[in-house]
């Protein structure tokens, strides 16, 4: 068996040493995949921590929604309490309004005059025929300063008086009847 040997003093530039090129390639590949792995871990970690962060934000927002919804309900309740008739009554009393009774009802007339009337006094409200009459007969202007007040028509005044007299008598009758019943 003949062995071929290369002369040691002769350079062989055509031949590359294979032993040097192979580990580099593997090394680079290892490095590359290593980098992918590291980046992957890094990304995964980042995702994990950001998901936790989002979870925290989410839970905070949920709590906030809950709180706002409860607050909304509380405010609705407060509004309803404030609008309840008993509270309105209290508020009205505070600002000086009083409960409506027969004695404090003010009946406004069409001609702008006003006066305190009892609800049983029907003349002002129930006899509309009297009003046009009063309006068509305005009082004559007087030279007297004392007469500057708006003149009241005679007829309604009389009927009012009559009505009040009639009412008084009926009240008296009632009282006497009540006494007899007792």
């Amino acid at each position: 068996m003949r062995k071929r040997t290369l002369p040691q003093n002769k350079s062989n530039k055509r031949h590359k040493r294979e032993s040097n090129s192979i580990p580099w390639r593997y090394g680079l590949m290892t490095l590359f995949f290593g980098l992918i792995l590291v980046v992957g871990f890094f990304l995964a970690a980042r995702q994990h921590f950001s998901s936790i962060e989002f979870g925290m934000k989410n839970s905070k927002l949920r709590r906030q929604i809950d709180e706002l919804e409860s607050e909304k309900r509380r405010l609705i309740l407060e509004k309803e309490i404030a609008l309840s008739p008993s509270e309105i009554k209290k508020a009205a009393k505070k600002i000086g309004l009083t409960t409506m009774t027969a004695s404090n009802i003010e009946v406004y007339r069409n001609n702008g005059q006003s006066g305190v009337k009892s609800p049983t006094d029907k003349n002002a409200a129930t006899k509309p025929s009297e009003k046009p009459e009063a309006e068509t007969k305005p009082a004559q202007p007087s030279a007297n300063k004392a007469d500057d007040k708006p003149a009241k028509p005679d007829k309604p005044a009389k009927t009012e008086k009559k009505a009040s007299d009639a009412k008084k008598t009926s009240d008296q009758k009632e009282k006497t009847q009540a006494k007899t019943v007792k």
Partner: protein
Amino acid sequence: MRRQAKKTKKKNPMQTAFTRFMLIVAFFILWIGGIGVRLVHLQINQHEALRDKALNQRRDQIKSKQLRGTIYDRNNRPLAMSVKVKSLYADPREIEDVEAAAKQVAGVLKVKPNEILKNLKEAKEHGKRFVWLARKLDENAVDKINEELEDRNLRKFDLPRSPGLYWREEQKRSYPYQTLAAQIIGFSNADDIGSAGIEQSQESNLHGAVIKGWQDRDRHGRVYDESDETEEREPPKDVVLTVSHSIQYKVEQALAAGVKSSNSKSGMAVVLDPKTGEILALANYPTFDPNRYTEFSVENYVNRAIHDNYSPGSIFKIVTYSGAVNENLINADAEIHFASKTIDVAGHRFSDHHSRSSMSYKDAMAVSSNVSAIRTALGLGKEKFFEYVQKFGFGKPTGIELPAEANGIVRPPRVWQGDSLASMSIGYEIGVSALQMASAFATIANDGVRVQPRIIKEIRQADGTVFSATEPQPTQVVTAETARDVRSMLRQVVVAGTGKRAQLNGYTSAGKTGTAWKFNAKTKRVDSSKYVSSFIGMAPADNPSVVIAVVMDEPRGGARDGGQVSAPVFREIAEQILPEMNIIPDSNIQQETLTAEQIPSETESLVPPVNENILGWSEAENQVAGEQNSANQTAGTAQTVQPVKEANNGAPLKENKAPVESDKKGVKEKPKPKATAQTSEKPKAETKNKSSGERAKQKT
């Protein structure tokens, strides 16, 4: 050789590298394989244990309760709603110095520390992990407690930052309108379980379920993940009532004023839409505040308008006349003749207040004639009368969606006594609720069509969609002509009869007064000193939009008649609610000051039946009594009156003075006892004593 070996070595660098690489790969494979095996072991074999361990470390179980459904009125105003509140509890195992903690907490809560200390000590000794310290605190109180209990050195994420103390979310039921419609709404107890009214009857719809959820926390206790509670269970539903809060308020105010002015024991009022059966208001007085229900008497919780039975008295004549008109036995304008003011039925004398020899049925209704009603009922007969009583809905619950509704007391004809038909025709020997009576009037108001009363308009889901809505079920009880005829009779009551005080400003009205003596359970007899005064009416009279029933229990003021006590309350209610309901005025009637002389009194014509003990007697006793009475009938008691088209097929009937048509038969007149000689001049008390004395004689 050495050179050759070197050459060989140099010859295989690739192989060497490959071998080395393979070694490294093998190492990694082994390593990863080892890890894989370990992972398989951990994740498959020890999966459960490790998962539980991990969950225990990071996960908290939380219990929360869905907010109870809201109760709305017909205008979507919340009458009952729940809000979230917080309750403070302690985990005694986490508290080292219990005494100091108790002192601190008591100082913040402004309570005595002894109670808290005792609870904490006991819990710690028994190894308990949960002790309530304060419940259902509002937001301000919670903030204040958090501030005062803050321990800055403690690393705790949750408030309050104090060792062993925690908040738990609860809910608090609030009733913003306080006493308004209290008996309708009811209340829910500390555990949020409905205990009365709609809260109780609609518990299944309103109930908020307990939801178990979880929260994942990091090492600082911050929540980073949690379960979605809303997906786990269907949320509770909201209930919309037919009641209007505004009408309800007006009714309650009018009723309260009426009860106070008549010095009544209690009062009840029902406002009903006859066409739909919707209850617009249902009030009781005295009432209670469901926010503070423990501070009130249990009696105030009772919804008397549906729960209590009472003898309706003359108001029940509407059934008698409706039946007779529907059977074409009478009509409103037909004349009825009276020979006397009294009538004897099965040995019992019933009397009237009026002293007219003849009048129309309309007028008979107006003056609330007992004799006329009894004669009409006798003409109608037992079976027919009973049929109409049932048709009008008496003796069974109306079906309203409220708990504990009374059936009423209506006995079948087989156990009636001789005078039962007569008694029932004028509203005795029968027990009704105010709602049943209102429903009967609503039938007449709605042209003879009875619509089941209802108080729930619809049940809504949380998103606002309608879950269920109640459909009214109409039943024709009497013909429309009959209803119109009876309405004209009721109109006469208000125009010229006992119900003049129910005349309205701007609207026509119709109705009937009722004044009945109350049954005394102890004596098992009616008590002539106690009354139930009622007025049930409708407006406008021609086409009623509303039926209002007002019942006063035991008025103790001067006047006791339904016309004097309840009719003004009816007027007050009707005049306020009709404009609100956009009902166009149909009359210009002005309210006049009515004197006692102008209004026929009803009280004096009160003659309850001898055996007005229906509420106390057993059926067997009634049966025996019925048999005895029928035996008496066969013994030869003469029948004298045929007042209406059909003959009386029931009890024997006598009038002290025979009426015009019976005069021909020549029946002997029974001597008129002094006790029944009632005149308008006689004081009421005297009349009452005499009639009760008479009853006593008859009983013996």
